[in-house]
């Protein structure tokens, strides 16, 4: 695949302060990592196919394929076409990839408004506002109570802990860091063998 957006030299590590956003193309086989710079860190992440922005990382399809609400190391997250999009390689806090509540860190509209504009300016393929995906949240956890209530369970984070994924095909990844005074989060992308 060729195109102006596929410029991998741009994928140097990025540090996002609270509420900052990041969006880029990540090629198949790459390692996509997140490193906490301190306690209370988190991020909302979105991912979709570079060639078809309607094929998106999906909570529902991941639940269906995994039959589990908390992905673990070795699990894959799925798209709306039931295709693996991310493999979980590292989750140091454990059970800290949350698909149950999309708004753990940010309302959807706030992420969408910032990231749609970023995609437009950089000419990166992205879904329209109406079909914007729902966030998967990292360094976040929602527990299910006996009566079906959803209960926030804080994830204990500290400086230097990681969550890492392997990207299964060429995707666009969009991230919005949590909070307004949370510690920063590092994002790093390491191209795979086939890159």
């Amino acid at each position, binding site marked *: 695949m060729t195109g102006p957006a596929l410029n991998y030299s741009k994928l140097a590590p990025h540090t996002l302060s609270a509420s900052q956003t990041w969006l880029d193309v990540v090629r198949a086989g790459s390692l996509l990592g997140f490193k906490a710079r301190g306690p209370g860190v988190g991020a909302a992440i979105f991912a979709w196919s570079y060639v078809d922005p309607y094929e998106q990382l999906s909570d*529902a399809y991941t639940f269906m394929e995994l039959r589990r*609400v908390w992905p673990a190391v070795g699990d894959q997250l799925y798209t709306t076409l039931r295709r693996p999009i991310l493999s979980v390689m590292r989750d140091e806090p454990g059970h800290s990839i949350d698909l149950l509540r999309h*708004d753990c860190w940010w309302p959807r509209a706030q992420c969408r408004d910032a990231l749609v504009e970023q995609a437009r300016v950089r000419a990166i393929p992205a879904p329209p506002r109406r*079909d914007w995906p729902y966030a998967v949240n990292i360094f976040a956890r929602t527990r299910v109570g006996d009566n079906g209530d*959803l209960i926030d369970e804080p994830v204990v984070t500290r400086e230097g802990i990681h969550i890492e994924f392997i990207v299964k095909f060429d995707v666009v990844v969009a991230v919005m860091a949590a909070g307004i005074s949370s510690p920063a989060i590092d994002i790093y992308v390491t191209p795979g063998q086939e890159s």
Partner: protein
Amino acid sequence: MVERFAETIRIRIPAREGVALELCKGDRVSVIDLAGHQGADCVAVTAEGAVSCTRATRAINRRLFPKVGQSIYADDNDAVLTLLENTSPGPHGLIVPPCDPTMYRLRGAGCAHPSCHDNFHHTLARKGIRLGRTPPSICLFQNIAIDQAGQIAIGVNTSKPGDRIIFRVDRDLVFVVSACPNDVFKRPPLQPTDIEVAIDMPQMV
């Protein structure tokens, strides 16, 4: 205050098929499992184009499925349906997507198998509505549970013949109901059965 309804319309949805119904704010809609153990997958699309949303509903209610008095929300975070009554003994689902051709192909049933996915898109298309993607459905009567370890179990639907769930319609919308065609997984009865929808329309004052 006792609500009065001028007219009740009953629609029988044959097993494996779907219907799209135009409902008005203030209507009352009942989805009835006629034979028991059957699932009904539903989606609502408002006149403004907002679509019922499992994620928004879970997040706003802070629950896996609304309690009586709570609502199903659309992707603009406004309520579309409010749960008035539920006679089914089992749970309902807002977790997994509707069955689709890919699922049936992967499970060896072929991609020509009827599906809630296709029922949604075909019935909405007949109303002139095209969705860019398939929304996760409101899975009525689905026996889904999540244990303390986070494992998702989907069992035989426990609804009995005549069990129903009743919603108040909060906005003008198109309501799609699919009598789930899933006959791939073991469950009694193995064959899908009909669903009935009853619409109560309020008296004009």
